[in-house]
């Protein structure tokens, strides 16, 4: 590899990229103009609005309780404006004016009044007999003016209450301290930098990760799919440049732009926040107790460290984005492919912002999340050298892996030079060419679309009622749109969904694999639970549901239909049907198993289920590929979910239930002999699948020949 050539490529790509408006806007426009503008504008507007509300006089009506009743019963009839001495106290308050009105409640709701104070009848008598008088403050929390009035009156009346208390104590000859046995005083020991750091730590890591993505997004596409679309790839390939030199040249360009964007964002954000802080502190009285903030922590060394750790992360993000974009034939198509990844990298960033997430020797290896957590730690000044090293090392490994994949993809002429027509942009069924299998682009688009539907519609219906929600999710949200879309783009449903009778022997293999896989997946779930514990609320919610249904056999059938049968049919059609067919058209069988498995894992939205479900997904993909029939996947899926359901809802036979309790499954996992049994079942199943596959292939060859 010649570094002079790489340098030549980088310089040319940078020049060309800097002449592209899209990249310029993402790289420079957003950080340099948008942030300061937004922060300054919002800050100013907020300040102006605040002072406007502050200056405005609150209009208040004071009425007695009796009047209220009258109003409620038969409308306003001759209201007594009353409530001495409350009216006097309120009248004394600054910027509060008492208004006489016929219809206090009506005026409050229309905003003509800011608050209504309801005073009990005979207030003075109540006070005189040392009783408590209930004073109701009516206000409209949705209106800022009303809130302000509420605060003003509440503070004023509290002062009066304290004064009255003191009078009462004095009358009894008691000291003030009598009514205040404990004096609780807060003392925050966190230095100002740490407070600032923990606030910044909640959002800065995610913003930095997003900005690396934003910076890389357009160049990664432009330098790969864009170059393909413009037909210049072949020009470049005709020079004595090696593929490696091309990859590295392009990659370094994307990396530079990504890092530069992140750096500009970091700088711009720090400056904007500093500016805003100076405004806020200038607006506050000196010595008043506000948020104790300081940005000294964000200086010198730590910014350098944060930037240093972002380098391998940027490496990783750029390499993956370029690899994905390379599959597309046009800029637009590439945008569709890269967007899901771009969204996916935000999730670990968000995870790091959640309370309780900390950098541990195990979370040190979760890609992207580890960097986010480290940045968070650096911001609060808590950083162990071995953690920095560990995160840097593991991120570098991922980066390298990404780069290896990108280089490998660049070497493949079928990917770099593919010329097949892309996904048609207009949407008329007649314009689609009938085809046996969906394209990989369609499959990925379908996946993203279904994920969004699940995210917005599915979670909504399941929130309302989990059982009916599950049925709606599986059948109406997943199955029907999947089939409709496939029909619309004129894909052969029978072929692409593998709607074929499986060889009988393969069913034996599936049953064995499902048994083995169930044990192994459950074990992995338990292991994972020890590393990243599932928050209580998640498992509690499920357990409650099962407890409610316990004992009733009729309900068990409904549960089985909702948790096992429906997912087995609907999710299989989506994943082992539509998605599998598209992915397989571009990848080897092994690659397909891995990709479809991972997509299946990601589809279960919860971070805690990605790994186990991805593994399950791989096994499901494998059996469908090997048997050539989606029904094997359905059987497998149904068995797995049923077993999970039975174990969770404690519907298993007495002996097994007892055994699970004896071995303390949730804490210890399975004993070795059971695990071995699982491995054995899985292996035996795979062997049977391989044999039946060979026989099936031989048979089809025979039939065709």
């Amino acid at each position, binding site marked *: 590899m010649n570094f*002079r*050539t790489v340098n*030549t*490529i980088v310089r*040319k790509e940078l*020049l*060309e990229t800097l*002449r*592209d408006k899209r990249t310029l806007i993402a790289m420079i426009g957003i950080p340099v103009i948008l942030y300061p503008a937004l922060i300054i504008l919002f800050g100013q507007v907020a300040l102006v609005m605040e002072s406007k509300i502050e200056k405005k006089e609150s209009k208040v009506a004071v009425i007695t309780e009796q009047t209220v009743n009258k109003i409620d019963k038969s409308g306003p009839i001759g209201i007594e404006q009353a409530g001495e001495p409350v009216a006097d106290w309120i009248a004394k308050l600054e910027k509060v004016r008492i208004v006489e009105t016929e219809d206090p409640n009506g005026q409050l709701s229309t905003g003509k009044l800011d608050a209504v104070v309801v005073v009990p009848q005979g207030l003075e008598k109540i006070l005189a007999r040392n009783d408590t008088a209930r004073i109701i403050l009516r206000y409209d929390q949705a209106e800022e003016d009303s809130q302000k009035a509420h605060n003003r009156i509440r503070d004023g009346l509290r002062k009066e209450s304290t004064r009255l208390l003191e009078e009462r104590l004095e009358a009894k000859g008691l000291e003030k301290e009598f009514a205040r046995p404990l004096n609780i005083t807060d003392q925050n020991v966190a230095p100002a930098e740490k407070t600032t750091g923990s606030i910044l730590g909640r959002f800065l890591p995610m913003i930095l990760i997003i900005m690396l993505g934003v910076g890389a997004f357009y160049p990664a596409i432009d330098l790969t799919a864009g170059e393909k679309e*413009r*037909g*210049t*790839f*072949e*020009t*470049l*390939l*005709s*020079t*004595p*440049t*090696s593929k490696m030199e091309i990859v590295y040249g392009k990659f370094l360009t994307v990396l530079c732009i990504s890092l530069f964007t992140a750096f500009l964002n970091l700088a711009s954000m720090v400056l904007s926040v500093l500016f805003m802080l100076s405004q806020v502190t200038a607006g506050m009285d000196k010595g008043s107790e506000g948020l104790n903030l300081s940005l000294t922590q964000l200086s010198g060394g730590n910014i350098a460290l944060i930037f240093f750790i972002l380098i391998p992360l940027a490496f990783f993000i750029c390499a993956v984005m370029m690899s994905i974009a390379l599959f597309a034939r046009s800029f637009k198509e590439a945008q569709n492919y890269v967007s899901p990844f771009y969204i996916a990298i935000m999730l670990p960033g968000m995870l790091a912002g959640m309370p309780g997430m900390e950098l541990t020797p195990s979370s040190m290896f979760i890609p992207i999340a580890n960097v986010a957590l480290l940045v968070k730690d650096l911001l609060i000044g808590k950083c162990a050298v071995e953690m920095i090293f560990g995160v840097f090392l593991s991120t570098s490994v991922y980066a390298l892996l990404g780069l290896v994949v990108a280089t490998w993809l660049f070497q493949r*002429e*079928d990917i770099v*030079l593919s010329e*097949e027509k892309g996904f048609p942009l207009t949407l008329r069924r007649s314009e689609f060419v009938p085809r*046996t*299998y969906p394209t990989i682009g369609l499959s990925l688009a379908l996946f993203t679309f279904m994920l969004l539907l699940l995210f917005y519609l599915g979670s909504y219906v399941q929130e309302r009622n989990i059982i009916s929600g599950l049925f709606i999710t599986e059948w109406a949200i997943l199955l029907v749109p999947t089939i409709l879309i496939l029909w619309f783009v004129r894909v052969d449903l029978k072929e692409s969904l593998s709607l074929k009778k499986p060889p009988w022997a393969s069913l034996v293999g599936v049953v064995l694999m499902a048994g083995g896989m169930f044990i192994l997946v459950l074990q992995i779930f338990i292991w994972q639970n020890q590393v990243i514990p599932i928050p209580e609320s998640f498992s509690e919610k499920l357990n409650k549901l099962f407890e409610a249904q316990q004992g009733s056999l009729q309900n068990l059938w409904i549960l089985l239909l909702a948790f096992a049968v429906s997912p087995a049919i609907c999710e299989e059609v989506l994943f082992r049907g539509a998605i599998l067919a598209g992915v*397989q*058209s*571009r990848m080897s069988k092994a690659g397909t198993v891995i990709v479809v498995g991972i997509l299946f894992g990601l589809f279960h939205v919860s971070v805690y289920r990605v790994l186990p479900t991805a593994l399950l997904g791989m096994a499901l993909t494998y059996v469908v590929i090997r048997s050539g029939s989606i029904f094997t996947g359905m059987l497998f899926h149904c068995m797995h979910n049923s077993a999970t359901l039975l174990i969770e809802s404690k519907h298993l036979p007495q002996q097994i239930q007892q055994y699970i309790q004896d071995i303390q499954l949730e804490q210890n996992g399975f004993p070795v002999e059971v695990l071995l049994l699982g491995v054995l079942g899985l292996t035996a199943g795979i062997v049977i699948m391989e044999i039946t596959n060979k026989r099936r292939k031989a048979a089809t060859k025979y039939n065709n020949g």
Partner: protein
Amino acid sequence: MIRAESLTKVFNPGRGKVVEAVREASFAVARGEIFGLMGPNGAGKTTLLRMLGTIITPTSGYCLVGGLRTDEQPEEVRRQIGFLSGNTKLYGRLTGREMLRYFGRLYGMEEERIKEKIEELAGLLEMGGFLDRKCEGYSTGQAQKVSIGRVILHDPAVLILDEPTLGLDIMTSRTILDFILEAKGRGHSIIFSTHYVTEAEMMCDRMGFIHQGRILMQGTQEMILQETQKDNLKDAFLSLVDRKIPQAI
């Protein structure tokens, strides 16, 4: 200079479908010779030339350029080749001059040499008027002139030109064809594919007819006419195609 030996390229568009784009193509081109490749759209011309240009690797067979095998030393081979096809476009956001300079550097040329060469080519191909404008604004003819400049810039021994006059007006075509003839005079070996029979008659020392991935016949114009017993290349080609089809069935 160039020798293709049983070149075959099979594409797998997925799922068991197999497309044989070029099958068992063999031919040779000597120094200072123009070899014409003629055939209809989709005949396999571009795939064949792409294999010679090391853009894609042959499924079987091999080719030698300047004694080097394209599959074994692709980078060395590319140093001796200038490759032009409908898929070798220009970088729209660069100017013609930047474009040529970039390729000069990729071929490892000295900065001084690149500068001289660009000036020389600007004169020969009449590019002075537009060389400092961005390529995205070029007309087809202007773009093709810069592409021809790009191909010859590093003075390669072999020129592979896939339909270099496609879509050009007669003026630009003539400039480019003259330029190719001149390159031949300077000893470049040239492979040249075209639709236009008259162009082939005028330019080529020898030619090959390609149809459905196979070279049906090759030789000098006279040889082909004699063999097919026709009096022009068009009829000769059509008779070859007609002869070929019954055989295939």
